[in-house]
């Protein structure tokens, strides 16, 4: 059980592209902003990972996800009191700027729980797309019910990555408490839906193009 290499022991400017790629993501590197994810988004991605790869990380051929990259983007919510009586209305924004150029969007879905059991009744939820202009809101219907009660709504048509005006997705998470009111149900806030970007990373390897200007792109 060797002690883990302290990050500082990595070469200052790692030559190995994988080291470079990973070092850019290391905690404490510039841009590392928020606490690592936890709760339902992490559980969802761990389940997805276990279905896609074995314990040594080898992709299961039988279970191809149809792409080599899936990014989970968590919502930024605007504070305030989302409850009004039995209604829950939460505005959510997903910031998408800065997607690597080599990653081409294949599909985008928002994953949420359409129904939640409460002590006294159920919480029924839906998603509304808040268009940038004055266009009417669009109620998103789930296109797939993957597992464990999650629903996926396709939002691909509303996203054009790289087009600066569309690097934000604004939604409204709308829920209503059904069944007898009472008890402490009112305080149960549903977890925020999260965005999944199914991307095709066109750089099969890891060498960032800037590092090898004269090398034929793999």
């Amino acid at each position, binding site marked *: 059980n*060797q002690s*883990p*290499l*302290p*990050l500082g*022991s*990595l070469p200052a400017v790692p030559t190995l592209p*994988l080291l470079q790629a*990973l070092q*850019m*993501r*290391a*905690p404490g*590197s510039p*841009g*590392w*902003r*928020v*606490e*690592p*994810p936890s709760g339902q*988004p*992490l559980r969802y*991605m*761990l389940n*997805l*990972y*276990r279905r*896609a*790869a074995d*314990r*040594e*990380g*080898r*992709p299961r051929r039988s279970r191809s*996800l149809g792409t*080599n*990259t*899936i*990014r*989970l*983007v*968590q919502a930024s919510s605007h504070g305030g009191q989302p409850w009004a009586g039995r209604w829950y209305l939460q505005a959510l924004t997903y*910031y998408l700027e800065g997607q690597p150029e080599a990653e081409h969007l294949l599909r985008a879905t928002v994953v949420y729980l359409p129904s939640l059991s409460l002590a006294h009744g159920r919480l029924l939820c839906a998603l509304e797309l808040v268009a940038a202009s004055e266009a009417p809101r669009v109620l998103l219907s789930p296109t797939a019910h993957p597992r464990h009660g999650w629903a996926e709504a396709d939002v691909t048509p509303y996203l054009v990555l790289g087009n600066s005006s569309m690097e934000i997705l604004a939604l409204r998470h709308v829920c209503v408490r059904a069944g007898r009111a009472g008890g402490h149900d009112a305080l149960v806030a549903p977890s925020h839906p999260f965005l999944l970007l199914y991307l095709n*990373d066109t750089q*099969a*390897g*890891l060498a960032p193009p800037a590092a090898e200007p004269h090398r034929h792109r793999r």
Partner: protein
Amino acid sequence: DTGTLAHDLSNYLREQGGEKSDCSLHPFPVSFAQLGWDHWIIAPHRYDPHYCKGTCPHLLRYDYHPPNHAVVQSFVHQLVDASVPRPSCVPYRYSPISVLMIEPNGGILYKEYENMIAESCTCR
């Protein structure tokens, strides 16, 4: 020069059995914690990249899939100029691994990285 080849053939036949130091694939299970990367790599906990090690035999067997250049280089080393090194024992085929990572902005990334596990070796 049949005399040399005949001599070499005896070496070759002896080598046929494959000396234990011949070029071959070796396991090396490693954890991302050992690499100091476990802060942001959530899965897998370990993987085995394997590595290739050993001497390339004088006459390269077909199962090494040697390029013709390596066969010629091996002859040159053997018969013409020993200062020309024998071919090197390097990976031949690779396979990818999938990694689950935490991103600097708090996102989670599932990514398949190509060429992360050496599956066989060759002499080049």
